[in-house]
């Protein structure tokens, strides 16, 4: 599932919902605004295209790996240092698929999703 939002999210709540009897591993990645002597970050997004590209990524991941569920949440707008930017969570029967899928999604998302960061000094 793909979600583009201004609002913060609860990684615990999302990963808890991914626990099902057939799931043996949940791997999550949380991207956070790092303090590089900045006040925050403005995340700009071409929303319709980002949703389409992220959906394609999810579909590709499901073809390549054996995954149960995929959740990608990306925030946009003005974020402060320490704020969550992105959550990618993957559930699978086994850990290797969950780790590999999560890494694949993070790397590919950075390459294809029409999203831009601007530092707020």
């Amino acid at each position: 599932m793909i979600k583009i939002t201004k609002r913060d999210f609860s990684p615990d709540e999302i990963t808890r919902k991914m626990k099902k009897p057939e799931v043996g591993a949940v791997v999550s990645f949380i991207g956070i605004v790092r303090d590089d002597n900045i006040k925050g970050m403005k995340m700009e997004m071409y929303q319709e295209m980002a949703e389409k590209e992220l959906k394609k990524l999810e579909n590709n991941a499901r073809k390549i790996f054996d995954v149960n569920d995929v959740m990608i949440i990306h925030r946009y707008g003005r974020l402060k240092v320490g704020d969550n930017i992105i959550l990618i969570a993957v559930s699978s029967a086994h850990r290797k698929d969950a780790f590999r899928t999560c890494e694949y999604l993070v790397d590919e998302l950075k390459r294809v999703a029409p999203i831009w960061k601007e530092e707020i000094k």
Partner: protein
Amino acid sequence: MKITVKFFAGHRDAVGKEKIEMKVKKDVTINDVLNSLIKRHPALEQLKDYTIASLNHNYAKLNEKLKEGDELAFFPPVGGG
């Protein structure tokens, strides 16, 4: 025919607008539109080598032809996450 052109990040700053409507001739390519925009907004010229185009929310090549009602977008290399 009429098309919509959207701009993001540095390209939006160069044009000074998020979105414009344009009337273009039949069989015009994305590159033709980009070149005519550069004439109107010279600040786009220095971004040309870093310009990525999308057509109706899919990545597009500059030699693709446009049709009535298309949504074109120009932006710099992406980097979310």
